[in-house]
C-alpha cells in the first residue's frame, strides 16, 4: 500500500475514446453480406415466380414484387452504408468496436473485464478468406462483441493480443 496515491483526476485530460482512429474491416465482408442479401432476394423472387406459375391473382403478385424490390433497394444501400461504418481499435487497456449506420454504436470493453476471446469462420468466410473475432464479457449478450470481416491471421493476432492482456491482468 505504500505506493498508493489518490490524486484528483483532471477529467478533461483523460484519453478520449472518440479521438481514436478506427481501423476498417476487410472489403471481402462486403462481398459476403452482398451474397447473403442477393441469396435471400433470389429466394423471394423464385417464390414470386412460383406464385405466378400457379396463376395466382397477378395484381397481388405485382404488389408483392414491388414491395420486395423497394425493400431490397433499401437493403443493398444499407449494406454499403453499414460496411463503411464497421471499425475497431485497440488501445492500451481496452478494445473499441464501432458499427451501425442509422444507429451508430460504439462498444468499449476494457481488457480487465474480458472473459474469453474466440475466432469463428463460417463456410462463406472460409471461401472468402475472412474470420470473425468474438469477445465475451460477463455483462450478458448486450456487451459481447463480434467483429466480422477480419483477415484470418489478423483475427488470430488480435485474439492472441487480447488473451495476452488477459493473462497479464490476472498475474
Amino acid at each position, binding site marked *: 500500500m505504500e505506493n498508493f496515491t489518490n490524486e484528483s483526476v483532471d477529467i478533461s485530460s483523460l484519453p478520449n475514446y472518440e479521438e481514436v482512429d478506427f481501423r476498417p474491416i476487410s472489403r471481402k465482408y462486403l462481398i459476403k453480406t452482398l451474397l447473403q442479401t442477393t441469396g435471400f432476394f433470389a429466394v423471394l423472387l423464385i417464390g414470386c415466380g412460383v406464385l405466378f406459375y400457379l396463376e395466382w391473382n397477378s395484381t397481388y403478385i405485382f404488389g408483392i414484387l414491388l414491395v420486395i424490390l423497394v425493400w431490397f433497394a433499401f437493403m443493398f444501400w444499407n449494406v454499403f452504408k453499414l460496411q463503411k461504418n464497421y471499425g475497431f481499435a485497440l488501445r492500451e487497456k481496452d478494445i473499441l468496436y464501432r458499427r451501425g*449506420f442509422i444507429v451508430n454504436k460504439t462498444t468499449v470493453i476494457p*481488457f480487465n473485464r474480458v472473459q474469453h476471446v474466440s475466432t469463428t469462420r463460417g463456410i462463406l468466410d472460409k471461401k472468402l478468406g475472412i474470420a470473425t473475432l468474438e469477445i465475451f464479457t*460477463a*455483462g450478458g449478450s*448486450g456487451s459481447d462483441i463480434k467483429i466480422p470481416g477480419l483477415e484470418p491471421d489478423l483475427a488470430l493476432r488480435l485474439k492472441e493480443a487480447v488473451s495476452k492482456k488477459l493473462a497479464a491482468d490476472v498475474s
Partner: protein
Amino acid sequence: MSPKPFENPQRQSEIGVILIFFLTLYKLFRGLWAIAAYLIFSTPSGKTLLYVGLGLTVLGILVFMYSYVYYRKFQFHIDYENESFVLQKGVFSSEVIEIPFDKIQQVNTEQSLLQRLTNVHKLVIDTAGGKEKEVSIHAISKTKANQLSAILMEAKESSQTEAEVETSTISAEKEGIVWSYKMDILTLLKIGISSNYFRGLILIAVFFSSIYQELSRWFQDSEILDSYMTDLPDPSNSVSGLLLAGIVVLLGSILITVIEVFIKYFNLKLQRTKSNLQLQMGLKTNRKVSLQPRRVQLLQIKSNPVQKCLNLHEMQISLANSENSLGKSKIKIPGLGKEIVSKVNTFLYPEEKSSFQEIFKPHIILFFRKLFISILMISVAFYVLFLLVQLNFQTLVLLAVLCFIGMTIYQFLLFKSLRLHISEEFIIKKHGFWSSVEGRLETFKIQAITIREPYFYQKRDLVNILFHTAGGDVSFHAVHKDILPYINFVFYKIESSEKNWM
C-alpha cells in the same frame, strides 16, 4: 485412508424420482393448460373423456420412466485432482458439466413445498462469467446438502489466492452479529396492501369477466337464468350495486396480494455480520442467501408516495450471473424502513467519498419522441376500438382526447424525473414519478459501455449510453455529448481498478 466425501459419483436421494416425476409433469402441464381448459369447457362426451384418460395414463407412465432414467443418469461428484465439481446428466443425450472451484459464485439451498413434504433440499450452484449455466440438484438430503455446500465453499475459498481480506467471509457464523432485522407481521400486511393492487385488480377483473362470459354463454337459451335475472335487480343499473361490486373486487385483489406477500416474504430476516449479510425469507420456499458486497452488481431502491408514508422501501439486488437470465440472480426485499435501507447501503458501499458529482438530464426531444410513440399506439388502439365496438363517434373522440392529455402529463412527469448522477465511485440513475426508482452501481463493476448515436440525434449532439454490468444493463437516453468526458473517466476508473468486481 477413507475416500474423501463426494469423490465417487453419486445420485440424488431415492425420493428424488418422485420429485422429478412431479416436476416434469408440472412442466408438461404448464404448457398444456390451455388445452385442458378447452376440454373442460367444451363439455366432452364420454368417449373423448375415455381417450383423454387413457392418453394421460400413458403419458404419466412415460413421464415416470423418463424421470427414473433421468434420476439414474444424474450423477455428481467432486474431482479433487482437477479442483472441480462434475455433473453428468441427460436422458437422450449425455451431458457432462464441469465447474472449476474458482468459478463457483455461491452455493444455496432451497426447499419448496414439495421438497419439504419429501424432506429433501434443493442445492443450487451459481457460477459467473463462464459459458456454463448454473447447476441445481433437485433432491438431496439435508446432511449431504450442508456437507457438499461446505466443501464447495471451502474449496472455492482456498482456490482463490488473491483478495486476502475477503477470504474470511465464509466463516460468518463464527463472527459476531453486528445487527439483525426481522420483519413483523404488520409490516408484511402493509406491504401487501400498498404494493401492486393494480395487478390484483386486473387479475380479478379478467377472472370474473371470463366466468361471466362463460356462464352467460351456457345459460343463453335456458329459461332458468331469465327468471333468475328478473328476480334480481340489475346490478349495472343501480349505483349502490356497482359500488358494492367495486369494493368487493378491490378487497379481493388486496387479499390476493397480501397472501402473495405472505407466501413470498414470511419471516424475512436480515442479519449482518462483520463481512456478510444473510437474508432469509419465504413461507413456501425458505430461501437463504448470503450477500457479499463484491458480488452485488446493481442495487435498486423503489418506493411510491403511499409506501413512503408507511416507511416502506423495496430493495432489488442483482448479483453477478453467468447467463442473461436476470430474474434468477435478482433478489427482491420489500418493505424495508429507511434506517434499514441506509444500514444495508453502508454495508454494501462503505466508502462514499467523491471529489465531484455531476448530474445529467435527457434532452427534451426524448419527451417528444416518447409522446409521439405513445400517441401513435393510442391512435391505433382507438381505431381498432372504433372498428370493433359500435360506439358513438363523439364519445370516442372525447375518450381519445382525455387519453391524450393524460398521456402527455404522464410522459412529461416521467421525463422530468429522469436523472443520471456520475460520481467518482458510483453511477446512479433515478426515474419514475409515481413509483420512484433509484438504481446504483459502482463504476468499477461495469463490464463494458455502449454509446449509441442514432442518426436523428446527430444534429443535436445527443447520445444514448448503455452501461453493461454482470447484473444487467442500465441505459440513459438522449443525453448531451457533454457526458462523454465522464464516460472517459469511467473507463479510466475501470481500467485502473484492481479491485475484484465479483
